[in-house]
Structure formats: structure tokens, C-alpha cells
């Protein structure tokens, strides 16, 4: 039963106030995009064992979407941040790197 802090309204609340929205920072591919790009955008997911950048909505609260950086192995939450970003902010990356040395965003061998 997770606890998350909504960066929009500042409330720290239990999971039941929130709705999980899957992987964050997906780039939308629309008309004119290649089959591969569209498939990746729609279906391919990092599903990492470890740091996951993901979307949440405070749906039983202020109603805002935000992003969270969370470990899928320990459920540790490194931080939450604005959904209006294309990249995780530096301070979040620094926290993650400090706790998970060698972490690379979306590292995919």
C-alpha cells in the first residue's frame, strides 16, 4: 500500500487516492509516423526491474497528473515531479543516481 506525495497539491496520501498511469515520458507518434515508432509508443514498455519513471493521477484529490520515480523491486519512491516535462528533472536524477549508482534512464541493452 504505497504512499505518494502529489507535487501539485502537496498532499501526501495513500495509494487509494491515486490512479497509476503507466510509463512516463512516452513520445506521442501520430499520423505519418512509422509502424515501428507507433508500435513502440503504444505497446513497448521498459518494465524495468528497478527504477521506473511512471505517471500517476491524484484522482481522489486535486485531479492532477504527475510523475513518480519508483523502484519496482523495493517500491522505494525517489521522488515525484511535474507531468509537464519531457525529461525527469536533474534533482530527481541526482537522487536516483545517488541511491542506484550507474543508473541510466531507459537503459536498454
Amino acid at each position, binding site marked *: 500500500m504505497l504512499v505518494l506525495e502529489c507535487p501539485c*497539491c502537496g498532499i501526501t496520501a495513500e495509494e487509494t*487516492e491515486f490512479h497509476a498511469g503507466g510509463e512516463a515520458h512516452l513520445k506521442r507518434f501520430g499520423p505519418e509516423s512509422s509502424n515501428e515508432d507507433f508500435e513502440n509508443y503504444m505497446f513497448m514498455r521498459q518494465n524495468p526491474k528497478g527504477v521506473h519513471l511512471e505517471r500517476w493521477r491524484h484522482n481522489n*484529490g486535486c485531479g492532477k497528473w504527475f510523475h513518480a520515480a519508483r523502484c519496482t523491486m523495493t517500491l522505494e519512491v525517489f521522488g515525484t515531479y511535474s507531468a509537464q516535462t519531457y525529461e525527469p528533472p536533474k534533482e530527481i536524477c541526482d537522487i536516483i543516481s545517488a541511491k542506484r549508482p550507474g543508473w541510466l534512464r531507459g537503459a536498454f541493452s
Partner: protein
Amino acid sequence: MFNLISALDKATDNSGIAKIEEIGLQGMITLRGDLSKAAVKNATTSATGVKIPAQGQANHNGASGICWMSTDELLVLCPYDQVADTLVKMHTGLGKAHALAVDVSDARACLRVSGPYAREVMAKLAPVDLSPDAFKLGMFRRTRMAQVAAAFWMVDDTTFQIVCFRSNAQYVLDLLKVAAQNGSEVGFFK
């Protein structure tokens, strides 16, 4: 003229460890806009005579008030029969500013839970720390009560005012009755 009916037509229940009542028609206006813009602030304050609350707060003056709903949303309270005028005032005040002000008085219901065990009754239903040192007068909290979304604040030390969707009013009333059943005092909040 026909009679206006609030969600529960002022139903009350006093059979348990707290008093539960639906308070009848309450004017409510949802305002969405850039809360940092002067036009948005002034439109709201001048229409209600109440200050813009800080994040997570609600300011009140009788039936009038302003509740902080979100980073770009306020819930404006006013007497039910003044909603139209208030909306006009707000629209005038907003002028050309990009904002949305809409009457939601009938879309919602207002209930009150009062008495020395009001905090405990609420704490059975909402996943929120309602101990006196954590939830104080002036605070405004949007959360869930059992299975529906709700928002509430305290109008005095022993009274909560709850706002929920009109269609869920009966459910919320029934929930509160169960939570306030006789013999269910917890004795946790000191």
C-alpha cells in the same frame, strides 16, 4: 412556484455517536483559471468578500467562502439564491482572462457531521490523519470517503462539512450512519 429540492432534502440522523445532516441547498461555483492572475483573484475575492485561500486551505464567512481545489481550481461558496449574481460579478471581474466559472450548486451535496466523535466517525471512512494536531480548522481536504470522492473541512472544532456529488449523497449519508453506530466510539483522538 415549484419547490427546489436538495439531494437529500435536509435529511438528518441523530441516532448514533455523531449528528449527521444534509444542510440543504448551498451555492457552489467551480472556477478554473490561473490563480496567480490578478483578474482571477480579484474576480473571486470581490464576488465573495473572502480572501483567496492558500494551497490546501479554505476561507469562510458564513455561507460564503473559497476552497482551494487544485493548482488551477477554486470552489466558490455563496448563498444558493445568489449564485447567478455571483457568477455575473465573477465574469465581469474576469473580463478577458482565460478562465471557466460554472455553477455546480446542484451537482453536489453538502453534509455535516458534528459532535465530540465527529473526527472518529470521519476517520473510519477517509484515509486521512484526522487527529487534532494534524487536521485543523481552515484546512480543506479532497480525498475519498469509502468508495466515493469527497472533500471536507471543519466549520468548528467538532463539525465537518462534506461536499460530495449529488448522486452519491444518499450513499455518503448511509455510510456516516454506519460509521456513527452506537457503541462504536474509538477513543483514539485525545
